[in-house]
């Protein structure tokens, strides 16, 4: 019997590992040193603003990565991932609100907005908000369980394509309306802000911010490696098979429900974690994060960077958000035009996004060099 070469299923190519090592080095060493050790006047000094911006974008990049698993690889476009991000953020925000203690405007044991609403005691869902461990559990459990239950019914009813996208959009919109209400107990349209401490240490000092930055970077790299392990496994190939021909997958004996539900829930949890890292760095969480536009943006990052590439959506998140912060500072009135033009350009000319463009150019170069 002739034996066929098995396809290589290594986690990353040597170049890939080098890139991961460089990313690790930048996150854990270069940025902290440039920000904390180099004096303010030096050209090499990295401003606090730049660190905060990069930290924020890394949180977005985690969402884009989560979007790639569900959209790029499984072919399910979610327009409600902002909801999971916001839920993770709110779970973290509740803990941060309790950490303010009596340093709020009203010097009460209760968070300011509750005093303002004339509430006398914490509502039931705040019962454990003092506990860091419990709230961190909620960061994972709330988005995860919501995704599990919603996904179970949606996938069991075989809701697909644009119908699924619209329902996820409606879900995040409904949640936003719910969180806007004061009675829900999440601070209404102001959300949570004015945080003072995180696990006992002041939140605004450079060292705390740097710890959060490094943590976000490590989580992003960790999630990337995990996602890479998933898509190179047989599980990942089944996901791609579901994207290409779901009926074939079913008639081959796989239950697509279990596979879709697993990746959908994992993707939601990743967004929840991103939200929890985002809130202490940005200092505010409000229902605006649940707006349909916020969720659509996540899909744009993934599309601009290149779907089903893992690295693409991360690049896309950095590129789009980097451009956004530059435009809104220099020529704010042009930002939306740029975003629109970018989306049209990607749709028309770069079906595989920025990362696909690199591949196209490389192939072209090879072809010209070959003959």
């Amino acid at each position, binding site marked *: *019997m*002739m*034996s*066929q*070469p*098995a*396809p290589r299923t290594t986690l990353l190519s040597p170049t890939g590992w080098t890139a991961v090592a460089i990313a690790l080095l930048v996150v854990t060493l270069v940025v902290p040193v440039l920000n904390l050790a180099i004096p303010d006047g030096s050209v090499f000094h990295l401003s606090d603003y730049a660190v905060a911006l990069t930290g924020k974008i890394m949180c977005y990049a985690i969402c884009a990565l989560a979007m790639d698993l569900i959209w790029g690889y499984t072919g399910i476009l979610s327009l409600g991932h902002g909801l999971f991000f916001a839920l993770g953020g709110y779970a973290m925000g509740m803990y941060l609100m309790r950490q303010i203690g009596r340093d709020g405007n009203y010097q009460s044991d209760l968070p300011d907005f509750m005093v303002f609403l004339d509430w006398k005691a914490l509502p039931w869902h705040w019962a454990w908000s003092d506990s860091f461990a419990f709230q961190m559990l909620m960061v994972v459990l709330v988005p995860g369980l919501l995704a599990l239950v919603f996904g179970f019914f949606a996938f*069991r*009813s*075989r809701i697909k394509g644009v119908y699924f996208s619209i329902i996820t959009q409606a879900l995040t919109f409904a949640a936003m309306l719910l969180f806007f209400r004061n009675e829900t107990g999440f601070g209404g349209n102001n959300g949570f802000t004015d945080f003072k401490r995180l696990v006992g240490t002041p939140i605004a000092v450079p060292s705390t911010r740097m710890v959060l930055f490094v943590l976000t970077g490590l989580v992003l790299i960790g999630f990337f490696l995990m996602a890479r392990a*998933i898509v190179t*496994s*047989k*599980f990942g*190939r*089944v996901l*791609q*098979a579901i*994207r*290409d*021909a779901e*009926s*074939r*997958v*079913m*008639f*081959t*004996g*796989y*239950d*697509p*429900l*279990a*596979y879709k539900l*697993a990746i959908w829930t994992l993707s939601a949890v990743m967004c929840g974690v991103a939200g929890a890292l985002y809130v202490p760095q940005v200092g505010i969480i409000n229902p605006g994060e649940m707006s349909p536009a916020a969720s659509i943006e996540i899909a744009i990052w993934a599309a601009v960077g290149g779907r*089903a590439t893992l690295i693409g959506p991360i690049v896309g998140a950095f590129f789009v958000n980097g451009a956004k912060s530059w435009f809104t500072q220099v020529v704010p009135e042009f930002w939306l035009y740029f975003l629109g033009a970018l989306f049209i350009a990607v749709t028309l000319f770069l079906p595989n996004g920025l990362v696909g463009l690199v591949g196209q150019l490389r192939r072209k170069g090879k072809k010209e060099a070959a003959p």
Partner: protein
Amino acid sequence: MTPELQEAGAAALARWREKQAVDGSSGGRSASFGRLVQGHEPDFAHGVALYLDDITVSFDGFKALNALSLAVNVGELRCIIGPNGAGKTTMMDVITGKTRPDLGTASFGANIDLLRLRENDIAQIGIGRKFQKPTVYEQLSVFENLELALAADRRVRASLFSRLTGTQLDRIGEVMTLIHLAPEAQRTAGLLSHGQKQWLEIGMLLMQDPKLLLLDEPVAGMTDEETERTAELFLSLEGQHSLVVVEHDMKFVDQLTEGWKKVTVLHEGRVLAEGTLAEVQANEQVVEVYLGR
């Protein structure tokens, strides 16, 4: 609300109920709510692989299958022919769990009630199906397409940590040689020709090692040489597997039946005639439905 309006409403409702009772509809029940049965082996002691009895499927009053009864023996190669709209594809949908019939029974072996199972369970107990339009995973390589079809634990956790064993690799290689795609192992399936995709899908069925293969127009779009090879392949499978082949290409059917095997003619959702190809071609009713009056 006026009494006239109420009466009119009641009359409309009664008419609607009557219509429902007459038409019946297969659209209402979803296949996804079937019951899961695991670990059941089909019992072939009586020599029957597939048994359909009195199957009726209607879509908005149109009867796609009308009291269809059919039995396929273990190891048999059965060709099914019939004009367009005869219900050939609907029959396959019923067997594989995609469509639930309004009436009738469908069993696999003597003991497994197919109407209680979901698509993926039916595939797992050993019924493989090839679609009319070749359906392969376009973005994956030929090798990966076959790997996913390989008979193995289909659960999520198992596939997360799955590694191919030497025997499995050999089996993939064997099937690739059988379907003449060994040189294309690492090629993306989307880049294959139409005929090659048909073969790849047949190869994927073989990887599942099914007891019964349902093949919906397997040689559509193939060259004469490819058709010839496909006929040889199917004939080599006969005996170890039961095969049901739906085909329009009479030359191909002639090759497969070798002059003596039974051919079933479907028309308007029922079996119109059964017999050797020569017999059914001589049947007046068959000639009538094929050529029209």
